[in-house]
Structures are given as structure tokens and as C-alpha cells.
């Protein structure tokens, strides 16, 4: 048995980092910009499929990792500039409904372009081995995934907390009119934040591709889990999204060992518990 439990826990962290990436993006958009983006999972799925195409046509996974966040973020900029801003005055309900329409479009476009069958790519060359761990080994690629996610999450955090632009964004969230008065186009910055948020989801989709492959419905399933993650971590808390993501990934992994039938239900049960005991989430304010 030696090694198997450890492998499960490591896999939990790998999955948790994916949740953390997605939820970090979601918390930027949902928690900070206050835009209910129900298409976040669709951007994640799109990331996986764009990565698939890049790998299929160039054979270069690293290129995919570089291109995907830019492509997905670019789409995000368009969505925010043309729809979300326009709908802001109509209210949250219409923003939700628009993103719902986006989900339909993206999901069906994926089936149309890439087909309904699951797709997969090989683990990039150079990372195809593994670290020996007892009787089994742990793939290098998964270690890379954890490191890469941690790096990106850290860079975005530093950008928000330690740069001039981050300071302007945070100020704009607290008091948009004031920031406008100083002569800064805060809306444009918000659109960029929206782009970064969905870009993170796209990157997560690209990173998971060599492990899980892609399916058209992959976004929908992730959407519900990342909602649970931000509720547990605290809506609007960047740190909460990251910690919540890893927590949920580990919960899922542990339940898979203990009682696999309830591994998904456990996530939402944890969410319900957090709502009852600490409604603002583990790291939320108020």
C-alpha cells in the first residue's frame, strides 16, 4: 500500500491547483468586479480545446501554454467590453443570462469544431517520466503543473498587491467615481481584470489537458465546483480562492480513498457547512 495514499494526496493537490487557478480568476471577476460570470467554466473548456489545436498543429505544448491564456483573455476582453459593461446598468440578472447564452454557444461550438468525443494530448516531452515513490511513481508533468499554477497565481497576486496598476484597480473597486475623477479610465482597467480572470481559467484548461483530456461538458462540471470553492474560501478573497481550491482538491482525493461515492457530494456538503458556520467564507471579510 505504501505510496498509493501519498499519490492520491498529491493528485488531490494537483486537482486543487487547477481549482485554485479557476477560482482565483472567478474571484477577480465575481468577487472584485462584481460581475456574475457563469461562463467561467466555458472559458476553461475553451482553453483546453485551443491548447489541443495548438498541440495538434505544431506539436509544441509549451507554445500552447503561452498562447491559450492570451487567446482566452482576448475573448474575455471582447465579452466584457461589448456585453458585460452594456448590461451592467440592466442588472446582475441580465449579466448572468448573457453568460448563460455564452455557455450554450461555446459548448455547442466545441462539439461542432472538435466533435463530441473526448480529446487528449500526450504529456510534453521531457516531462514524461516520474519521481519514484514507493512501488509507484509520480509524474513529472503533475509536479510541473503545481509549480506553474503556483507561479501564475503568485504573479497575479503580486500584480494586484504590489504594483501601481494593482493599486489603481483596488482603488477603483472601492470607489470607481473617485478614481474616474483623478482622470484614470477605470473601466478599461476592469476590462483587463476580466480578461486576466478568464485567462486564468483558460490556462487551467490547457494545463489539465495532458492529464484529463478535454470533453465538451468539462466546463459545466467545473463551474459548480469552483462556485463551491469561492464560497468556502470567501467570495472576493484571492487568498481564499487559492486555499479553498487546494482544500477542495484534497477533500475530493481523501474522499476517493475513504468513500468514493460521496467524493463530489462532500465538496458541496463542506460548502453548506461553511455557509452555516461562517457565511463570509474562511477568508472573507464582513
Amino acid at each position, binding site marked *: 500500500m505504501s505510496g498509493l495514499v501519498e499519490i492520491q494526496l498529491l493528485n488531490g493537490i494537483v486537482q486543487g491547483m487547477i481549482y485554485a487557478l479557476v477560482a482565483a480568476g472567478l474571484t477577480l471577476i465575481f468577487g472584485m468586479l462584481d460581475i*456574475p460570470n457563469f461562463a467561467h467554466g466555458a472559458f476553461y473548456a475553451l482553453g483546453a480545446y485551443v491548447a489541443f489545436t495548438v498541440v495538434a498543429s505544431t506539436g509544441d505544448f509549451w507554445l500552447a501554454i503561452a498562447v491559450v491564456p492570451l487567446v482566452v483573455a482576448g475573448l474575455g476582453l471582447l465579452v466584457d467590453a461589448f456585453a458585460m459593461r452594456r448590461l451592467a446598468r440592466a442588472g446582475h440578472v441580465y449579466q448572468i443570462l448573457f453568460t448563460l447564452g455564452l455557455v450554450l*454557444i461555446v459548448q455547442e461550438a466545441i462539439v461542432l469544431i472538435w466533435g463530441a468525443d473526448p480529446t487528449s494530448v500526450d504529456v510534453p516531452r521531457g516531462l514524461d517520466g516520474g519521481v519514484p515513490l514507493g512501488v509507484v511513481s509520480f509524474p513529472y508533468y503533475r509536479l510541473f503543473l503545481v509549480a506553474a499554477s503556483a507561479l501564475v497565481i503568485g504573479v497575479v497576486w503580486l500584480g494586484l498587491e504590489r504594483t501601481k496598476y494593482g493599486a489603481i484597480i483596488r482603488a477603483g473597486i472601492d470607489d470607481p467615481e473617485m478614481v474616474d475623477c483623478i482622470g484614470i479610465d477605470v473601466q478599461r482597467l476592469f476590462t483587463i481584470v476580466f480578461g486576466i480572470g478568464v485567462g486564468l481559467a483558460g490556462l487551467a484548461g490547457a494545463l489539465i489537458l495532458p492529464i484529463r483530456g478535454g470533453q465538451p461538458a468539462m466546463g459545466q462540471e467545473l463551474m459548480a465546483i469552483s462556485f463551491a470553492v469561492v464560497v468556502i474560501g470567501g467570495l472576493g478573497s484571492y487568498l481564499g480562492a487559492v486555499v479553498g481550491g487546494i482544500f477542495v482538491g484534497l477533500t475530493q482525493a481523501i474522499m476517493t480513498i475513504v468513500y468514493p461515492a460521496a467524493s463530489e457530494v462532500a465538496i458541496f456538503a463542506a460548502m453548506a457547512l461553511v455557509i452555516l458556520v461562517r457565511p463570509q467564507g474562511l477568508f472573507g471579510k464582513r
Partner: protein
Amino acid sequence: MRRFAVLVVIVALAPLVLRYPELETQILTFGLLAVAFNLLLGQMGFLSFGQATFNGAGAYVAASALIDAHAALPLALLAGLLAGGATAGLIGALAITGRGVYGVMLTFAFNEMAYYIAFQWRDVTGGDNGLRGIPTPALFGLSLDDATRYYYFTAVVVLLAFAAVLRIIDSPFGAVLRAIRENENRARAIGFRVRRYKIAAFAISGALSGLAGGLYAELFRFVPLQAIDLDTSTNVVIASLLGGIGSPYGALLGAAIFTVLSDSLSHVWSHWPLVFGLIFCAVVLFFRGGLWGIADRWTRRAAHA
């Protein structure tokens, strides 16, 4: 009142024109689901992304009552109604703790939870294979094992439920829900116990959804896992918006159009959801009143002319 009379006539005559009673019955059960959704969104201003949770709870409970307890159809439907109401009351109580959008997210997440429970709890729900073996419908000894007869039975139940919804909207209770929608803090300041009203609205909406689930289960004598999945919840949201959020009639209209379209278009082009999504986004951007809103504007303009 006149609108309701027109609705009754349309529902009564529909089988003569369309001659496809199963689909029409489905329009009614899905319509009831949309009306239940509309009660929360149109009156209270809460977008529930979890109507399938209550629909599924009602379907499974009503079906189990019919299969295991050999309950009479009205009793089984009542059980489904109560199950939907109780589930919705519980989830509503959890979902309304935060600000509006936060609650939407919670109804979504709890729907996924309910789906996984139904998926894994095979003894009760049949899991992936669905719940089978529901006996043929009968009412006080009269067999309803005929698609047209079952349509009329469903029509009576759904129209009664619809009339109840109209009554609720016109009642002081409905007025409080609208007050909450317009300004929650003010409603609270006047002295209404907002939280109780919200949970009650959830329970009523859930009860109607559970009833719809029970009727649906008996229609096909089968409860598929789809009865409780997020796609169904999404479809309810989409259909209601297409019809128009402002009115329960709009919800019915949207449900009818959605059901007929998805039935016919899926034969024409399997990727129709793509076009549908584009239309839907356009509706959100440009025609927020939905079809009912457009029709309403036209009839008013005609009345003025």
C-alpha cells in the same frame, strides 16, 4: 381574467390541432416549472438556478410513492409537491444568506450536489439508468393510460396551479415579494420579516416544481437523471427569459416555444443550441422583455391606435 380564459381555451383545444399529446403534456409540465421559476424571479427578483433540484425531488418522491407505496395518483403528486417544497425551503434558507448574486451561485452549486446524490443513490433513483417501473396512471379507478386523457388530467392540474400563482401574485403576500424585489431594506424597515417571506416564496416555487416533476414522472412512467440535472435548470431559465420575465403567461409561452423548438430543431440540425445561444444573447442585449413583452407592447399600441 380574460387572459386566463383564453389560456384555458388554448389548452383545451390544443390536442385537436397538434395531435401529439405527449409533447403537449411536456409543454405543460415544463411550463409549470417555468411559472414556478418566474414566481421567484418575476416577483421577488431572485434568479434561482436550481429549479431542477425541486423538480427532481418531486419526480423521485412521487414515483417512489407510486411504485413502492402503491399510492393513488393524487396522493403521489401531493407527496411530490411537498418534497419539492421542503427541498426548496431548505435550499432557499441557505441560499438567501448572502447578497443576490451569491445566492444564485448557491442554488447552482446545490443543484449539482443534488445531481450527484441522485447519481449515486441508485437504490432510490436508479442512478444513471433512471427510475423505472412506475405504474400506469389512474384516477379513482378511471384509467388515464391514454396520452390524450393524461394530457387533460395534467392540463387541469397545471391550470389550477397556474390560477393559484395568479392569486398569489395578486395577494398581499405577492405585494410584499415585489416590495422585497424593489427595495429589500425598505421592506425590512417597514417591518416585514423579509427572510421568512423569501423562504416561503422558495417553498411555494419548489412545491410547484415538485408537482411538475411528479406529473412528468407519470407521463413517461420514468424518471431520468436529467430531471434533476443542471441542464434542466438552465433550460428553465432560458425558456422563461425567452417568454418574458415580467409575467407568468410569458413563462408559459416561453416554455411552449422552447419545448416545441428543441423537439423539432434537434431533428433539423443537431447543433441548433449554437444558433439558439446566439438568439438568446441577442434577446438579453436587445429585447429584455422577451416575447411576452413584445406582444404586450404590440397589443397596447393596437389598443391606443
